[in-house]
């Protein structure tokens, strides 16, 4: 069995952050029932010109492995049908703007009334409470509110937009909080309401800088530099737009790197002898290291540096990541089949477990309403006539 086998999730989440949360939980074995409607299909079922996708996606990472049912939540009977799914679920997850679930009759109190120990998750931009709770937001705004965007950037440049990695780290945090709430239920018999604010997740990733500011410090953008390491950065490699990341923490690592560069007497130079002097002469060091890396293939140099005990990795493009034997061996990258049989790379669940059935993606994107026989028929025991009546009134729609 997979670790979360037996857990069922009524999944009302939309966009990226919430669906990524339930995507992780589904890969860990939870049965996730994705609740959608033709009235308001999820983003991957329609074109997305902002990202250059002109038709529906044939495979959607965050929808894979989930079950799909249709419910028109705007109809009162739709909310009632959704509650029937919640009644047989352990978790209800949503990511609408605050108060939307209340308006639909699906707020925490309403769900608790049908399933007393339900764990309800709400993911939103600014949380369910406070003066900004009604703010709409997307990933780059979370990063801006939370300070991660302000601190990311070249020292003499503007802040930087943090993109979908921001959404997805919100989702991974939320998944962790949900499993914690399930442990709480197991220990106490009580459900709980979990409120995850995306901007707070962004802030949590710069906790040390916020603490520094609380002590009167002023953390600022530092590009690729590090306050305690030099050389530390991204250096040019041989070829067009090729780069390698290198980080030197100790004197021994510096000696190893200097030995590879084998510049006359570089390893002995006093101005680079310890961390303090290397930091003071970081610009000169960057020039020396960059001159050396510029003549090297990025991947070969990384291997050479690792063999010498220096932390280094080529700056990998997406195709390089997708082809990596290490990531494939770990099933961090997996091959999935499109409905027409085409094989493509997808991202697996970021962990390996020593026991139990293999975790990860085991089904592709569900068709809208693909699993209604199972959910409405087997799980809820609705008859064909009852289902037809709900379709006729556009509740199942």
């Amino acid at each position, binding site marked *: 069995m997979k*670790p979360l086998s037996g857990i069922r999730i009524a999944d009302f989440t939309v966009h990226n952050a919430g669906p990524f949360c339930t995507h*992780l939980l589904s890969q860990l074995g939870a049965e996730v029932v994705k609740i959608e409607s033709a009235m308001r299909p999820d983003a991957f079922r329609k074109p997305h010109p*902002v990202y250059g996708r002109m038709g529906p996606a044939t*495979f959607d*990472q965050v929808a894979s492995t989930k079950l799909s049912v249709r419910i028109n939540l705007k109809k009162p009977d739709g909310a009632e049908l959704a509650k029937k799914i919640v009644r047989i679920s352990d978790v209800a997850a949503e990511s609408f703007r605050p108060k939307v679930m209340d308006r639909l009759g699906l707020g925490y109190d309403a769900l608790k009334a049908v399933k007393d120990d339900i764990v309800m998750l709400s993911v939103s931009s600014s*949380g369910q*409470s406070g003066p900004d709770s009604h703010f709409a*937001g997307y990933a*780059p705004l979370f990063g801006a*509110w939370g300070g*991660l*965007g*302000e601190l*990311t*950037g*070249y020292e003499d*440049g503007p802040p930087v937009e943090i*993109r*979908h*990695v921001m959404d*997805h*780290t919100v989702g*991974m*945090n939320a998944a*962790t909080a949900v*499993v*914690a709430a399930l442990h*709480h239920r197991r*220990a106490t018999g009580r459900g709980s309401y979990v*409120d*995850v604010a995306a901007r*707070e997740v962004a802030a*949590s*990733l*710069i*906790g040390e*800088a*916020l*603490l520094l*500011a*609380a*002590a009167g*410090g002023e953390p600022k953008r530092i590009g690729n530099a590090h*306050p305690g390491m030099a050389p*530390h950065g*991204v250096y040019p490699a041989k070829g067009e737009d090729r780069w390698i990341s290198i*980080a030197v923490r100790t004197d021994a690592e510096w000696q190893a790197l200097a030995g590879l560069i084998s510049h006359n007497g570089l390893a002995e130079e006093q101005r680079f002898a310890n961390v303090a002097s290397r930091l003071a002469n970081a610009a000169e060091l960057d020039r020396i290291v960059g001159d050396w890396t510029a003549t090297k293939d990025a991947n070969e140099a990384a291997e050479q540096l690792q063999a010498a005990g*220096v932390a280094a990795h080529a700056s990998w493009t*997406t195709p390089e990541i997708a082809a990596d034997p*290490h990531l494939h*061996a770990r099933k*961090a990258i997996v091959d999935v089949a499109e409905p027409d049989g085409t094989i*493509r*790379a*997808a*991202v697996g669940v*970021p*962990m390996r*477990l020593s*026991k139990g059935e293999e975790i990860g993606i085991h089904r592709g994107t569900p068709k809208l309403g693909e699993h209604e026989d199972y959910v409405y028929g087997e799980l809820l025991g609705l008859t064909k006539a009852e289902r037809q009546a709900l379709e006729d009134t556009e509740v199942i729609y």
Partner: protein
Amino acid sequence: MSNAPLTGLRVVARASGVAAAYAARLLGTMGAELTLAEPPQGTPLRREPPFLTDGVSALFAYLAAGARSRVCDLQGEDGRATLAALLSEADIFIDDTPVVERAALGLDEASLAAKHPDLVHVSVLPFGAYGPKADWKAEDINVQHSSSEGNLLPNGLAVEMFPDRPPLKIYGHFGEMQGGIAAALGALSALWARDEVGGQFVDIASQDAGLAVGAFAIQRLGDGSIEHRVERSFRYGGVIPCADGYLEMLTLEQRQWEGLVKLLGEPEWALDPALEDSLERSRRGPELNRHIREWALTRNVDEIVEAGQKLSVPLARYKTPAEILRDPQERHRGLFQPVEVDGAGMLDMLVSPFHFDGKPLPLRSGPPALGEYRSKVEA
């Protein structure tokens, strides 16, 4: 009654890096009793910048808040016995000792499984404990460049201004913290199945976790397009320089664009009927941005954001850490709580991005002194 969901759980962490320590922090702030098993000289994280004052690490203070500390010198029998005693009472052990050093210290998967069959043993390393690169070293910058975003940033205004500069890492320990979050999730998931399968080994790689949160680039690859930091920028909006700082602007929906036109004062260029089409707006993005930037440059961020929010235009100020600390929203939410940090005094520290049952989580204390092991963790 505490709202912390993991009350009663015991976690031991041997962490010399951010990823393992962050996993432990997540579990600790959610209520687990957390003990750091440190070498006699303390974890290297105690000596990691940035510093609050001389020798007081802000990074360690943040990562270790609420924990206890126990010195376990694994070079000697006593230290090993101390760790073994801690582990015999623990539910979860988080460790980032390099794989090659584990067997000699009795920390390898098989030894720990034999001695502590019910323990969830979580290994947290840059490239994991298994696979051809398991022995590779990495700092955060290397993690970011091996996984997803490293090569893809910066985008937007920064890459427009500096197209020839090297790619740029996300600030701080973003890549390592992804490993930590995945480790916390893995630990709790394995623990969930303990009644059925007993303890087990959870192998976490920060690279895998960074890749997971960057999954969208892999999905785009499958669709036949390769993301690049120059081309992936939003066509218009994005980072907008104003008179007194920067704001973020992103209008993905039609009504948001209409709100933006009103916010701009309905200038003639924006009323061009062709711009009602979202694809046309994308095509003419640089032209739109010239107008938007010219308009914003003479106005203050808060003035624009306040007016824009009323028109449902998604806008946000790029906030500094000091601004976040005093933001009414964060104050209302109780995101920060004062704790004592030895050598630096009482400081507001970020607790956790989660509320349980309508309340923020409680932070027990600041970071422990080396070997500070209170018999009972104060509530």
